[in-house]
């Protein structure tokens, strides 16, 4: 009984505490630059799309809200023909960013995406692709991968020898 009255008293005293509620649209919280909101697609230092359409983000997505189709340019460089994310299903878990092997998908602090029409929450590649490299400057997947696809000469990657001349006789 006494403890009940004590807890009532303590709760009553909360009246004189500072409010934790933030008056959101008028007042906005500070969001750190690495805060994880919605995704964007970034670009390589050479300004072409970082996304290589490997489908790992789609596979990692627990709500299956990413779908894409791979295609290639004339040099064989992979890129998504379309890249669609249904933000009305997205749970902002960030697993797509974790799965992305090329730093193409990055999460930005944007979360204010409410729409009156749910259809407008379906984002296509042109809605997602930004003009910069995002958080990871200078990284180019093709420099560390084995395929050349016009980004480098064959064997011109960061950790590669020149291609073997298989017709040479020297052992």
């Amino acid at each position, binding site marked *: 009984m006494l403890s*009940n009255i004590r*807890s009532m008293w303590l*709760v*009553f005293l*909360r009246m004189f505490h500072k*409010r*934790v509620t933030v*008056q959101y649209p008028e007042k906005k919280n500070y969001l750190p630059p690495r805060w994880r909101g919605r995704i964007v697609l970034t670009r390589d230092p050479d300004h072409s799309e970082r996304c290589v359409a490997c489908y790992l983000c789609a596979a990692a997505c627990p709500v299956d809200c990413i779908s894409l189709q791979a295609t290639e340019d004339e040099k064989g460089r992979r890129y998504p023909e379309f890249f669609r994310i249904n933000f009305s299903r997205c749970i902002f878990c960030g697993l797509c960013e974790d799965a992305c092997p090329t730093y193409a998908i990055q999460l930005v602090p944007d979360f204010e995406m409410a729409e009156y029409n749910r259809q407008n929450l379906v984002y296509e590649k042109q809605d997602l692709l930004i003009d910069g490299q995002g958080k990871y400057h200078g990284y180019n997947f093709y420099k560390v991968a084995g395929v050349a696809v016009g980004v480098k000469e064959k064997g011109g990657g960061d950790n590669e020898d020149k291609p073997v001349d298989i017709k040479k006789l020297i052992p």
Partner: protein
Amino acid sequence: MNPIWAHILTLVLVLLVMVTIAAGLIYVERRMLAVWQDRLGPNRVGPFGLLQVMADMIKIFFKEDWIPKFADKRVFVLAPMIVMISILMTFAVIPFTPLISVVNLNIGLLFFLAMSSLGAYSIVLAGWASNNKYSLLGAIRGSAQMLSYEVFMGLSLMGVVVMAGSFNLHDIVMAQNKVWYFIPQIVGFVVFFIAGIAETHRLPFDIPEAESELVAGYHSEYSGMKFGMFFVGEYLGITLISALIVTLYFGGWRGPHFLPPVIWFLIKMFVFILIFILMRASLPRPRYDQLMSYGWKILLPLSLLNLLITGACVLYFK
């Protein structure tokens, strides 16, 4: 003024004020809960969010008035009406000031007890008519709870009746000219207060509608204005119990003369309403069996003891 017209005016006024207060309590409760939980509460609709009540009302009026196919339709409709009517009837006997009261009934207190017993029907009927296991479970719990707590609710009031020598609420207030009864009747007050919570099935005694166990208890199947009646009925119940506490133990309209009596009554009443809300903000719900054993094993002996001592004292000092 024609006394008949004055009566009708009082009646309409009391009805309007009480229902408005009850509706307003929806806002007050949400706001106060927020205040005690470091939040802000509804503050978007109108100044300080005051129009939230309006918004809620509009919403609830325009909701589809839906009755489940499996329900007993007539009883289903009847149940929420009983709760409103029985509580509103009780307000008729409450003396807000020496002049403002609907009737000056010489068995006012008994009338209140009778009406609050009727309130149990609304829960039983609602739960039964819903034809749903959670509703029925809620109804069974509710009826058991109300029946049990009514016993010593009545008994706890007997101390006041003995001291005032009347069932007339007007007389009881008048009898408190020397000392408010909460001092001699402190035990009776505490027991009545607890029983009042149980009667209105407010937290922590909201066992008939314990949402974590029973969905929404007896009113699981209700929506729209029928649910609204249960909802408003609950706030009317709070107001009623607060008004009775004020009348029986805290001298009714009495107070220093710089404020008119009706204001004193309302201030006192609101203090108790806020205590009701504070309890919701702070106390956890007991188990059902704990509730029952608490009532029968502690409160009932306590109220009997209180009646015995009060009677003895009254006889001794006579």
